[in-house]
């Protein structure tokens, strides 16, 4: 049986560090946590691991916690500090 897979989207500094905008992560098990997906992602892209303190996870286009469960086919993103709007602090 194949492992469940989630799509991981990478933006801005995360995209630049990883060198790709989209990747897939194979979960150790169905219902794995966001945190476990992050660890799998970082094994492939070790340069991302230092970013964990600054990114916020988003699952299927909503912010979630690191312990939330991920299912096969989900869209996962690790959102670096946002800087939209006008160029004000």
């Amino acid at each position: 049986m194949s492992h469940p897979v989630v799509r991981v989207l990478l933006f801005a500094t995360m995209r630049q560090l990883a060198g790709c905008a989209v990747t897939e992560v194979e979960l150790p098990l169905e219902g794995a946590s966001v945190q476990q997906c992050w660890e799998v992602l970082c094994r492939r892209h070790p340069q991302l691991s230092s970013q964990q303190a600054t990114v916020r996870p988003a699952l299927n286009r909503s912010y979630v916690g690191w312990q939330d469960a991920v299912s096969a086919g989900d869209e996962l993103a690790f959102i670096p500090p946002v800087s939209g709007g006008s160029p004000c602090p």
Partner: protein
Amino acid sequence: MPVRVVVSEAEIDVAAMQAELDLTGIGGIATFVGVVRDPDQGRSVSHLTYEAYAEMAISELRAISAEALGREGVREVSVQHRTGRVDRGVASVAVVVGAAHRHQALDACTYVIDELKGRAPIWKVAG
């Protein structure tokens, strides 16, 4: 429809956003337009480039707009954010709020732009 959200490469037409509002019961329209500032901290700026997680940015901006609509008197919210290259002096973001009274409109407009800056997955990137 009291909420409109656009995240796109298209130029922002603020007058069109204002003209689209349903003015029934509205006494005040507050608008915030963010423009690419030049000079910025003493340095000349030719343009900025914005990247967005567009589907999620739209979803967050809809949520923020709904929160603003939940405030007393607020009737209409329209938000637009550009992606890609935006030249100096050009609008990168616009928020338009229509409400019964002026402070309701101005406060809700401030709320939307503040939340946008804190939550919408949009980034200034090099290039």
